[in-house]
């Protein structure tokens, strides 16, 4: 407790103020949402049986791109999953969300932390200092995104003909949301033009400013893109698994199906 707070301890604290009693709702909801996703994605990547991540022209985003590595005894999804995992774990939006929801550091604005440490080091010390490497995950995430677009195009093509199924549309929606998330990234915003102090002083400066402007237009919604794409990734995976188990019968016809 800070000296200032101690001196004013006769005064009720912010948690008990009118309208602030629900301060815990948002961090709790975020913690539950993340935990559900992490548990589900671990099951999907590591524990799910057989090849249920593929059905007809559909492929679960957790399993793309496919890397065939004979030496690898575990689920091949692990060979790629660390990229989106690292990308999200070091993302500026997720940092806000997990520092608040899991570490209560702070739990909500102007709400005191349960443990107030004077040895707080923030993102200066291990492990959080590693968040400074977010850009490298961003470069790799762009590569993975290209594969996901390729998968999506393939999901509109089946048995040698154009094909449109619920799964194709879901995959398209998912890859659009993932693109929104990736292209609104703060590190990308810096990379394409944010690092420049004087656009008129360099060659191609106008173009860099234009690119920066494009990312800046969608960047304020980065948190929404993050949640929407998190949900859509899980939704596509769940849908593909349902189709693969035959829950909808054998539903692939020539041009349309499930």
């Amino acid at each position, binding site marked *: 407790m800070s000296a200032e707070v101690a001196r004013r301890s006769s005064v009720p604290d912010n948690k*008990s103020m009118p309208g602030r009693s629900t301060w815990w709702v948002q961090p709790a909801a975020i913690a539950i949402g993340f935990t559900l996703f992490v548990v589900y994605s671990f099951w999907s990547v590591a524990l799910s049986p057989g090849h249920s991540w593929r059905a007809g022209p559909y492929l679960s985003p957790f399993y793309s791109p496919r890397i065939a590595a004979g030496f690898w005894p575990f689920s091949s999804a692990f060979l790629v999953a660390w990229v989106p995992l690292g990308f999200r774990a070091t993302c500026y939006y997720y940092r*806000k969300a997990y520092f608040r929801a899991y570490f209560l550091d702070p739990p909500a*604005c102007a709400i005191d932390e349960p443990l107030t440490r004077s040895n707080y080091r923030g993102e*200066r010390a291990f492990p959080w200092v590693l968040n400074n490497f977010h850009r490298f995950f961003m470069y790799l995430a762009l590569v993975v995104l290209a594969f996901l677009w390729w998968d999506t195009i393939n999901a509109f093509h089946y048995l040698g003909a154009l094909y449109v199924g619920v799964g194709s549309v879901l995959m398209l929606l998912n890859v659009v949301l993932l693109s929104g998330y990736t292209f609104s990234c*703060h590190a990308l915003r810096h990379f394409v033009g944010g690092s420049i102090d004087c656009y*008129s002083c360099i060659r191609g400066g106008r173009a860099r400013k234009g690119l920066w402007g494009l990312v800046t237009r969608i960047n304020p919604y980065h948190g929404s893109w993050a949640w929407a794409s998190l949900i859509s990734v899980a939704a596509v995976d769940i849908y593909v698994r349902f189709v693969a188990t035959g829950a909808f019968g054998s539903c692939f016809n020539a041009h349309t199906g499930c």
Partner: protein
Amino acid sequence: MADQETFTFQVFRGDSSGGEEQEYQVPATTGMVVLDAMHYIQAHIDGTLAVRWNCKAAKCGSCSAEINGRPRLMCKTRLDDFKDVDVHVHPMRTFPVIKDLVTDVSWNYEVNRKMAPFTHDPAEQSPWVMYQEDVDRLYEPRKCIECFLCQDVCHVLRNHEQKDSYFGPRFMVRYQYLAMHPKDILNRTGAVKNKGGVGLCNITKCCQEVCPEHIHITDNSIIPLKERVADEYFDPVRWLGKKLLGKRDERPAESETGPASS
């Protein structure tokens, strides 16, 4: 006419040795803000209540306080927001109380003096020609009214008491302005990291939530500064590229040393 006759206020009364809430009943008027109520108390109930204010127009940044547990300007907080509940008015927690709602914010001015001011090329005198595309990003940080609500809410200063190590969000806004100014010749990155302590910010965005000028402090000031720090300190690829191409940053650098608080 407001549809409520009176408001019940619980106002902190005290000084650096301690204090407590005092209850006041204030008649409601149309469009009333919290600062009006404090003035009513001063004029009609207790003239010893201490409040700092100047403009009553959300432009001077003097009347910062914590109203029902949220850092806000008293002159911009309408009582319509508080139907049928008591209104608790406390001084900012992060700074020492002088009296009642008035806090000692002088630490901020000390921090300000630790930053190298705007520094232009001495060979180039104003008036300067600057292009719109180069100054677009500079309007937002200039909106700051120095209310220090962002400093008050920042948990690094408020809960972890790291005023010695972190300059706080308001000064990250100022650093962003200086760092992106096309005519400022100093390299600020080392100072932002080592003197300003930007690494202590964990991007939890409370500063951005409370800023009455709606400056996107975290998104447009702190994160871009963190990315600049990453450029120079956490990017081996960039470092190697610069070595191979023989590129060097010729700009003079702002001093990175000196204690962050006196």
